[in-house]
């Protein structure tokens, strides 16, 4: 029904996360019929995207690549506390923590979570790079901000174990009741987890 070239575009668009066959078709038809300049601009940007954007050499966040090195904005920012390091699973998680404004240190992106069932063992994780980074920057405190899933918890435990010999302070982000929420509206499971992960009151 549609030209082969357009079908190919639909097929490629449908591989994007969150985009199904129908949305892909809508995008493709929009690009082909109503937005010639968007299609051209998008095409030009995409052709060179991977030549200019790479994971940061130091932390794994996305960065501009100048032909020799890729260092991201967070790692360049000299006002940040280089002794404090937050370990996250994905770039999306880094952005989420960054939005909170509560993190004044730097990050390390693991890229994936430990998951033997999906074929991801400890050797698939960049643990050696992480330890080198910690040594080089003389990091004194690590916050592990992996998600509260089984794989996220296992990864946090593995990271903590790997870092144990260094003697630096390691903490795990808390999970539980959202800020401003009344306890009576929290579901039992979330509240149960918050109680399991309770902490002492510093007075």
């Amino acid at each position, binding site marked *: 029904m549609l030209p082969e070239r357009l079908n190919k575009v639909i097929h490629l668009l449908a591989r994007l996360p969150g985009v199904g066959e129908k949305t892909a078709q809508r995008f493709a038809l929009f690009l082909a019929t109503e937005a010639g300049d968007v299609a051209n601009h998008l095409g030009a940007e995409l052709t060179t995207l991977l030549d200019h954007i790479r994971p940061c050499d130091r932390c794994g966040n996305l960065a501009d690549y100048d032909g020799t090195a890729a260092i991201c904005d967070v790692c360049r920012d000299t006002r940040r506390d280089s002794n404090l390091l937050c370990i996250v699973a994905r770039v999306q998680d880094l952005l989420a923590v960054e939005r909170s404004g509560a993190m004044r240190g730097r990050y390390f992106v693991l890229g994936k979570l*430990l998951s*033997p069932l999906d074929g991801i*063992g400890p050797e698939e994780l960049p643990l050696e790079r992480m330890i080198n980074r910690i040594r080089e920057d003389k990091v004194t405190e690590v916050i592990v901000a992996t998600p509260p899933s*089984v794989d996220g918890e*296992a990864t946090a*435990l593995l990271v903590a174990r790997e870092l144990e010999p260094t003697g630096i302070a390691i903490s795990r982000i808390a999970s539980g009741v959202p800020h401003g929420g009344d306890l009576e509206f929290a*579901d039992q499971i979330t509240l*149960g987890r918050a109680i399991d992960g309770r902490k002492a009151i510093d007075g």
Partner: protein
Amino acid sequence: MTASIRFERVNIRGFRNIQSLDFEPAPRLNVISGDNGHGKTSVLEAIYAVSTSRSFRAERLAEAIQTGAEAAVVRVQVRDGDLGREQRIALEPSRRSVTMDGKRPAKLAIYATRTPVVVFHPGDLVLVSGPASDRRTLLDRLALFLDPTSGDHRLRYTRATRERQRALLERGTNASDLPAFETLMVQHGTRLQQARRESAEALGAELEPAFRKMAPSTLEFTTSFVPGGSESPEEFARELASRRGQDARRKTASFGPQRDELELLIDGRSARRHASQGQQRLLTLAMKAAELACVRAARRAHPVLLLDDFSSELDPTRTGAVYDFLEGSESQIFVTTTRSDLFPTPAVHSADRVDWTVCDGRLERG
């Protein structure tokens, strides 16, 4: 105060052989009759699905979508004490969604305990005669009412156990990620172990008197819960660490609540192996009565009782016991049978009983 739970209106569309069905059940007893294959069990299954988001049949719930229909939808008006609410489940080929008063629940495990139902169907005989896994499933279902976090611990424990087994198989007993997964197994396994013991105790306390009411007094019936793991974190961790080699060789985790057993003993001997067919039937019924009593106590409400295919195995002892049990119950009851005249309930006031006939997926009064 024990509240009563009542379905006031049931609407089923595209569910198995039911194209469209809308009825207002009687507050006490609903006897649904009809020939086999006309949709009696589907009515009960639909009520169970909208209450728990699951099926009591072995098949996957997605298979309940009627051929040619886009989705199966069950909608019910529930009266829970003084409060009314609407619950709805929609099944599509690749997903199911539930809502309560139009809102999606935060957690499925919590949704599943809001409108308590207890089902009794012919396949339940495996509770007595079948493998330990069926009895663990019963304990887990009860545990959700006693401790809503237990289902979450069970899912996490199971996942961590599978991850550890895979790590063991692929990287051996010194794999550097084993301690991480074993730590999680201990964390969630001890909690699951505790939840299972507590539901076994609650069930056991109701089971023995329930059985005594139904069976000849000469038989002595006891239950014994045999944990497969430990509630002590230290012991759990020690056992896991020391069993790595064995677990890798046998390709299965040899310590933990996945090996829990609820033993049923008649005169001190395993009911599974030594009880007669008749005794096993009575025991199954006693287990259901005990489940009902436990849910009632935990939820402070009379659960709705779904009794499937009553006529299939008529034997006089069991039938008498069922009548006593049903007529004494304050629950709303749905029962399916091939012939409603085989189901006399003289103690139930005639205004409290409605007989329904299912034919080709349609339901008619009388």
